[in-house]
């Protein structure tokens, strides 16, 4: 049996090839550097070269984000729709449960990067949210409604799947018990802070629901708009902008189209989502009645960066503004924390298998050559899964103000960086989108009659 496993292991290493060894952060580094310097065409060129080796879902997600930043909405929608089809396939499996477990087989033998990337739950939710945002930017509110409706339906599927999964885990008589606290030297504070634990879960975000409220409100559907604002408040309680969204809903819906005012929604995004790295640990595995140290890898985030002070100045009125509605940085860490027990269990199981294979290889070949080969493959392939949708923003905020129509001077400040411009405010509703990445500001706007 073990000899057969050695064969499978070596074959799988060959088949998995570069994908199991590559570092996603290194791959994407040049792309993110180009974004930081405002060279979006270069970033797209670099990303397109990754097409052959990249995971399909991640490729589509990142490509969509690049085209979105560039303002090419047709291309952004094309890639994000392709990504959405893959997520819909996941949803079909999530309803059945079984298929998702079966896909983990390669990760037990080699490493977690062999698993087909299915996206974190919060990424799946953000995907349809971003599709809705893109439709809004093209002025197609009806299409935005379809996408935002898919967002809350997706949340419900994820909720049910995770509930069933938690129940299965609770019922399972697991033979491996290893807690995060046991990871010697692991910077536990990066995934175990009070603000991280205060999140209701890793996938729901207030922005998606606030945007749902905004879209349904434009379509004069208060019975759907109100729960959008209400859910946003539940996820980010006591936030004044979110509370004002619900409190002022009836008044806003009854406001005449031609009163000379525009309801301006400002969406402000900051940075890039956090990068994961591989952290190596020596774990203890029982083999042939003895305890053996084996190396295994788990993902790790670097320490959180401080949130810069931000503000928006409209004419002479300064509005204190903070990208604090959604903290994707925090959600990423919470996702990793939730997944960590399963990652450790798979890593230990994999390490145990590798120890057994090396032992069998040593028995098979007295010269030790086969054993050395297996040992080498074990070390080389042992790397944590560092993949994630890296071009998502780290943080998202919203601001909302009723303005008289016409040209206004608007100035954004974030830390020491600022961007000012004249904006033509028009329509009954208007959406102004701003994203700051490093010193670069990406701005888009659209108004709705």
């Amino acid at each position, binding site marked *: 049996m073990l000899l057969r496993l050695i064969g499978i292991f070596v074959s799988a290493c060959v088949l998995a090839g570069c994908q199991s060894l590559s570092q996603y952060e290194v791959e994407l580094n040049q792309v993110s550097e180009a974004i930081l310097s405002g060279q979006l065409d270069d970033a797209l060129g670099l990303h397109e070269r990754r097409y052959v080796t990249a995971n399909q879902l991640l490729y589509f997600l990142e490509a969509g984000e690049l085209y979105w930043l560039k303002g090419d909405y047709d291309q952004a929608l094309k890639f994000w729709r392709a990504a959405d089809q893959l997520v819909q396939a996941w949803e079909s499996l999530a309803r059945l449960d079984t298929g998702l*477990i*079966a896909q983990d087989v390669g990760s037990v033998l080699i490493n977690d990067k062999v698993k087909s990337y299915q996206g974190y739950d919060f990424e799946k939710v953000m995907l349809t949210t971003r599709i809705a945002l893109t439709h809004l930017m093209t002025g197609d509110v009806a299409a935005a409604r379809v996408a935002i409706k898919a967002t809350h339906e997706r949340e419900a599927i994820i909720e049910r799947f995770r509930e069933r999964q938690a129940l299965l885990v609770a019922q399972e008589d697991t033979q491996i018990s290893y807690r995060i606290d046991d990871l010697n030297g692991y910077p536990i504070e990066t995934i175990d802070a009070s603000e991280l634990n205060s999140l209701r879960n890793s996938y729901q975000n207030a922005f998606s629901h606030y945007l749902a409220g905004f879209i349904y409100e434009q379509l004069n559907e*208060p019975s759907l708009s109100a729960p959008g604002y209400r859910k946003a408040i539940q996820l980010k309680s006591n936030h004044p902008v979110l509370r004002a969204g619900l409190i002022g809903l009836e008044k806003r819906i009854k406001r005449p189209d031609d009163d000379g005012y525009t309801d301006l929604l400002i969406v402000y995004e900051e940075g890039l989502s956090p990068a994961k790295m591989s952290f190596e640990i020596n774990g203890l595995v029982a083999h042939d009645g003895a305890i053996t140290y084996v190396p295994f890898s788990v993902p790790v985030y670097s320490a959180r960066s401080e949130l810069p002070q931000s503000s928006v100045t409209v004419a002479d009125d300064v509005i204190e503004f903070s990208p604090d509605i959604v903290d994707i940085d925090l959600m990423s860490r919470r996702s990793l924390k939730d997944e960590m027990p399963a990652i450790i269990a798979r890593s230990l*199981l994999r390490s145990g298998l590798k120890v057994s294979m090396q032992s069998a290889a040593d028995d098979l070949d007295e010269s030790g050559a086969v054993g050395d080969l297996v040992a080498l493959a074990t070390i080389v392939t042992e790397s944590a899964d560092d993949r994630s949708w890296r071009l998502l923003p780290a943080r998202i905020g919203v601001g909302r103000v009723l303005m008289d129509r016409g040209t206004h001077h608007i100035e954004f400040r974030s830390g020491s960086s600022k961007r000012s411009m004249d904006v033509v405010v028009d329509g009954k509703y208007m959406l102004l989108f701003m994203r700051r990445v490093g010193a670069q500001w990406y701005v888009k706007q659209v108004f709705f009659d």
Partner: protein
Amino acid sequence: MFQRGYVLRVAILIVFSMVLGCSKSVRYGDSKGIETVSIEFGSTDLQKIAEEMTRSMLVSQLVVTGNRPLMTVQDVKNLTSEYIDTRAITDSIRTELARSGVVRFVVDEEAMAQQVSELERQQDGEYYNQEVIAERGKMLGAAYRLEGSIRSIVKQNSDVKDVYYKVNLQVWEIQTGILEWSDETDIRKIRD
């Protein structure tokens, strides 16, 4: 033994999921059948509310003694945290009442823009026979308005989720402000 058991289990799961993958098919279901796919507000809840409210209104004094009263439908406020399209409820009630012929409905606030647009199109257009076009100032105002609300109470612990919906509808006489009819229905769903 542990590894062998795991590999065997994974193999069984792969075969099982492949079999399931092959057996997926599309079928029609009974649109009136009880739907219990999830605990969220669903088609059965919508139908129950619409049927009970319509039945109640059909035997009310307003409808029985009235001479086909003119009514307009206003918002049923969704005061829950669920995305419930309450227009689906009022649309069903309106359809059933209109089908019974005992209540007549006039254009509501939501459809007013389209109504006015059509009137203006006929008035201003050179393509219509001016002798039979719809005239301005002939629309009838409603004598009554239908409105309501839906609320929910959600309780959940690690084992059980309990959702209670309460729907209340009212018909108000527009001229006098008198409440002519009101009824409520509730739904309780438990998932464990």
